[in-house]
C-alpha cells in the first residue's frame, strides 16, 4: 500500500504532557518517534492500531548529556546523532560502533534510539549495547516516572515491559567503572551494505590483576529478545584471559540463545555465528583493554 490507511488516526502531541495524556487515555495506540519501523508496518498493514501518537516533534527529548558517570540520552536522539557525537564516542564507544552499522544513512537520520528499543524487534540493533552497558530506560506516564533496567525491558518479540500509558523519554547509559575496558561489536548480515542483522554480538571486557573482572556480552537475532550471554560471562569472570579460555567460554553461548530458521538464515548458521562472533568480539575487546 502506498499510504497509511484512514482507519489509523495520527495525533500530533504538542508536548510531553500532552503525549502522556493521550497515551493514558487512548486504547490501541502506538507511539511514533522517527517512524522508520512503524510507518512501514502501517503501510504494509502489519500493524493497524486505532491511533498513532506522534512525539517526533518534542525537541525536549532530543539531547545527550553527561552527568559524570552516565550519559543521559533523550529518546528522540537519532542514530546518526549518536554516531556523530563526540561524547558518545569517548564515553560509550560501543554505542557508536553499533550506530555505525545501523541500516544506512537515510534511515539513521530519522530512526531514534527510543523507537528502536520500543519496537523491540528480536534484531533491535540498539538493544545490544544497552544490555552491555546495563542501561536504564526511563518510562514516563501521567502517574509519574520509573526506571526500567534494560534487562527487564524486552519481554518477547515486539513486546516490552512498558505499561499502557507509558512512553520512553530517556535512556541512561552508565559508563563509570568501565574506564580502561575494551569493547567490540560484530554484526553479520547477508550483504556488506545495509542489512538487518543475522546475528550481532557486542561486548565489554575489563581486566584487573591479570584476570577478567567484568565481562558483558549481548546478542540479538538469536532469541525472541536481545539477550545477555550469561553462561559465557560466568565462564569468564575471574579467569585469566587466554585463547583457550575465550574459545571454551564462547561455545557456551549456545545455552543463552534459541535461534530460529527463517527466510534470512538457518538456525544452525545463526548458532554457529553466535559462537564465532562471541569469540571474535571477546578477543577484539581484550585487545582494546588498556
Amino acid at each position, binding site marked *: *500500500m*502506498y*499510504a*497509511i490507511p*484512514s482507519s*489509523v*488516526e*495520527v*495525533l*500530533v502531541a504538542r508536548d510531553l504532557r500532552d503525549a502522556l495524556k493521550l497515551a493514558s487515555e487512548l486504547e490501541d495506540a502506538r507511539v*511514533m518517534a*522517527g*517512524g*522508520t519501523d512503524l*510507518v*512501514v508496518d*502501517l*503501510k*504494509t498493514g502489519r500493524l493497524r492500531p486505532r491511533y*498513532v501518537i*506522534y512525539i*517526533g*516533534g518534542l525537541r525536549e527529548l532530543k539531547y545527550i548529556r553527561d552527568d559524570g558517570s552516565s550519559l543521559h540520552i533523550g529518546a528522540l536522539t537519532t542514530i*546518526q546523532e549518536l554516531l556523530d557525537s563526540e561524547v558518545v564516542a569517548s564515553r560509550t564507544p560501543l554505542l557508536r560502533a553499533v550506530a555505525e552499522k545501523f*541500516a*544506512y*544513512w*537515510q*534511515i539513521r*537520520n*530519522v530512526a531514534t534510539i527510543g523507537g528502536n528499543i520500543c519496537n523491540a524487534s528480536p534484531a533491535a540493533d540498539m538493544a545490544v549495547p544497552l544490555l552491555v552497558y546495563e542501561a536504564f530506560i526511563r518510562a514516563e506516564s501521567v502517574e509519574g516516572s520509573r526506571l526500567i533496567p534494560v534487562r527487564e525491558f524486552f519481554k518477547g518479540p515486539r513486546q516490552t515491559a512498558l505499561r499502557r500509558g507509558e512512553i520512553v523519554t530517556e535512556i541512561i547509559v552508565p559508563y563509570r567503572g568501565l574506564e580502561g575496558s575494551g569493547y567490540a561489536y560484530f554484526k553479520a548480515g547477508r550483504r556488506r*551494505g*545495509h542489512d538487518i542483522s543475522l546475528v550481532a554480538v557486542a561486548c565489554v571486557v575489563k581486566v584487573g590483576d591479570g584476570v577478567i573482572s567484568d565481562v558483558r556480552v549481548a546478542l540479538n537475532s538469536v532469541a525472541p529478545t536481545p539477550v545477555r550471554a550469561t553462561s559465557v560471562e560466568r565462564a569468564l569472570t575471574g579467569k585469566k584471559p587466554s585463547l583457550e579460555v575465550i574459545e571454551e567460554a564462547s561455545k557456551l553461548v549456545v545455552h543463552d540463545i534459541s535461534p530460529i530458521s527463517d527466510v534470512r538464515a538457518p538456525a544452525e548458521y545463526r548458532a554457529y555465528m553466535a559462537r564465532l562472533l562471541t569469540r571474535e568480539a571477546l578477543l577484539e575487546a581484550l585487545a582494546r583493554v588498556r
Partner: protein
Amino acid sequence: MIVKFILNGKPVEVDVSPRETLINTLRFKLRVKSVKRGCERGECGSCTVLVNGNPVTSCILLTIQVEGAEVTTVEGLVGDEIFERLAKSFIETGAVQCGFCTPGILLTAYAGIKQGRIKSAEDAKEYIGNLCRCTGYVKIIEAVVKAASEVRSSGRV
C-alpha cells in the same frame, strides 16, 4: 492540519492529514515528481530528499515531521555549485543509465560532499546506501569521488 516548511528555498504551506507521507505530499500536492516511488518501504532510497541538509527516505516520513524544516529535492539544487559539479560529473562519467535512482543518489552524494563526509571511494560506499540495478555502482562512485575532490580543491568545503 496545516504544515509549513521550506521547499527548495521557498516557503510552502500544505493542508494535510497527519498520516500523509512526505512523498505523497511532494508528488501529489506539490507536484515534485523527481522524488520516486521505488519500494515505499524505506529500502531503496529512490525517494530520498534532504531535510535540513540530511538525506532521508520520504516514503516513510510523515509530512508533519518536516514542520519548519528545509526540504530539498534536485529541482531545488539546479544552480547550486556543488550540485552542478556533481551532476556534471555524473553525466560525463556515464553514471546515469535508466535514471530512476539518480535523483535520490545525487541528493545523498550532495549531502555527503557538502558535509565533508565523502572524500574517498570507501566513504562514498559507506554513505550511499541507495539501490541501483543498472550501473553496478562503479561509475556512480567514480563520479562522486571526482566531484568531491573538485569541490575540495575549489575550497568550497
